């Protein structure tokens, strides 16, 4: 048995490269991240400074937490377009409760529970009504954004604490220079989710549900439950990202998180997660998010107008998926 395994893994024959690729859809994102990193290091003079890297990491962490949740959900074959609105709603709840003088921890919990509730709603509606989650969450994306605008009248809410509340430090304080705690949240949560995905029975059930739902059901997997749980995880992570972002700005406007869902999905897809479910992992998403984050600040530093960012990310998504798809075809030949 050892020999058979070695034959697949260790030998440096082309076969072992095939083998590795089959199980590592994140390959493209890793290469892309390295290339873009080197590219900006050479073209943007201030790219490699601590401040620049810290600002990239700040953006990456908040986007990454959302994208990690989306990745988990996408692997079980569903979508969540409402994460941007959930992020805004959660941040707004945190802001309003903090402003009203509630202890930060209580406000934070309320925001998370509300996010979980939105996720539960997304999941139950999708599963019970048997409609595509694209539609369910398109609806809830617009619904919660509308509520947010209606409740605030379109005005931002700002919170002026006396000193920095401890929870705010835990969520997003600066630990070294401009490096923030949020990066630890992102890497910790993405790592945790990846362990669940690859090393536990639940992870197996998630892959199976996305890979072939009917087959998974026949084999006794509670696919509806898996989907609902993943909707809740995705929404809670978006909610957490909202609170973390609020702990950075102390202010939230009702359009907070607008458009974020597409960026988060883009990062997951760049990282090798299948749009149709059944494949992907968090390692790919981590690299995908870094790629997006680096492009965002790198382009500006390289002297390109900020508007180029969207155009560039758009290109990267399409190229990444073409590469990922052809690599997979080649590997599964």
């Amino acid at each position, binding site marked *: *048995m050892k020999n058979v395994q070695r034959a*697949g893994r260790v030998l440096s024959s082309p076969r072992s490269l095939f083998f590795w690729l089959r*199980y590592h859809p994140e390959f493209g994102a890793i290469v892309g991240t390295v290339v873009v990193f080197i590219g900006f290091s050479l073209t943007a003079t201030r790219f490699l400074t601590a401040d620049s890297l810290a600002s990239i990491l700040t953006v990456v962490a908040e986007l990454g937490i959302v994208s990690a949740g989306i990745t988990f959900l996408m692997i079980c074959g569903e979508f969540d377009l409402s994460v941007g609105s959930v992020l805004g709603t959660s941040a707004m709840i945190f802001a309003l409760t903090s402003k009203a003088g509630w202890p930060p921890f209580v406000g934070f919990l309320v925001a998370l529970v509300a996010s979980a509730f939105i996720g539960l709603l997304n999941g139950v509606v999708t599963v019970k009504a048997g409609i595509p989650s694209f539609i369910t969450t398109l609806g809830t994306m617009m619904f919660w954004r509308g509520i947010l605008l209606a409740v605030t009248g379109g005005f931002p809410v700002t919170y002026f604490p006396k000193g920095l509340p401890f929870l705010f430090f835990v969520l997003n304080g600066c630990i070294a220079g401009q490096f923030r705690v949020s990066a630890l949240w992102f890497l910790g949560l993405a790592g945790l989710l990846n362990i669940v995905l690859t090393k536990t029975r639940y992870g*197996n059930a998630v*892959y199976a549900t996305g890979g072939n739902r009917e*087959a998974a059901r*026949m084999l006794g997997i509670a696919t509806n439950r898996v989907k609902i749980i993943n909707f809740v995880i995705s929404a809670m992570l978006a909610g957490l990202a909202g609170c973390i972002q609020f702990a950075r700005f102390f202010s939230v406007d009702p359009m907070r998180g607008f458009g974020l869902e597409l960026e988060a999905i883009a990062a997951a897809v760049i990282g090798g997660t299948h749009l149709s479910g059944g494949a992907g992992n968090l390692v790919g998403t981590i690299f995908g998010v870094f790629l997006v984050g680096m492009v965002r600040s790198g382009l500006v530093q390289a002297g390109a107008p900020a508007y180029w960012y969207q155009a560039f990310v758009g290109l990267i998504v399409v190229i990444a998926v073409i590469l990922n798809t052809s690599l997979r075809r080649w590997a599964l030949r």
Partner: protein
Amino acid sequence: MNDRVPLVQMINISKNFGTVQALKNVDFDVHHQEVMGLVGDNGAGKSTLIKILTGVFPPDTGEIYFEGKRVVIRSPKEARAMGIETVYQDLALIPLMSVSRNFFLGREPVACFGPFRFLDKRKMDRVVLDVLSQIGISVRSPDEPVAVLSGGERQSVAIGRALHFGAKLLILDEPTSALSVRETHKVLDYILEAKERGLSIIFITHNIYHVYSVADRITILEHGRKVATLQKSEVTAEEVIEIVRSGYNKKR
């Protein structure tokens, strides 16, 4: 072999889907260590009968006895726990997942690490390679995705899985359709091997010749009714085909 209580007995099973009567008062039984062929044209009710037996949906009327005891099977999971293992044509395995993850899906061995339970990957890989080599299949690695296996290899992984988890009844839904001649023979051999080990097998197919070569008895369904259950020793394959056809003609 026939003097014992049958392993499975389904009595007077009926099932309607809206106005369509999928099964009408069907009696069906499988003895211990027997290969039962289940044949009939599309829409004859073969898969409905099997889905009732595996808990996918309940019958409208009728009773099921398993090892002599009356049972109500509410889900595929319950059927599996009782020892009824089904290998569906396209739904046996998840193509993008590895051989060993597929093999243990829903029943993974875990190792405890404090309060956490992690997949026991080493044990999974070892068992998979053992079981597969016992029935004569070699995979390059248990980490290989099922997508790269041939149709016959996939069927045999699924059959090996049923053997390993101590199935008493193995249900094979069109196991030889879309297989090459050589692979078909291999799968038919696995069916006999499974019977040799004491399992009972229900073999659902369109291909009378395939089922005739391994079956002990053959049940023919037509438009939701049972036309006949035949001892193979009493009929030729051509006669079975004729009954399937004439059963069809009689109706029209």
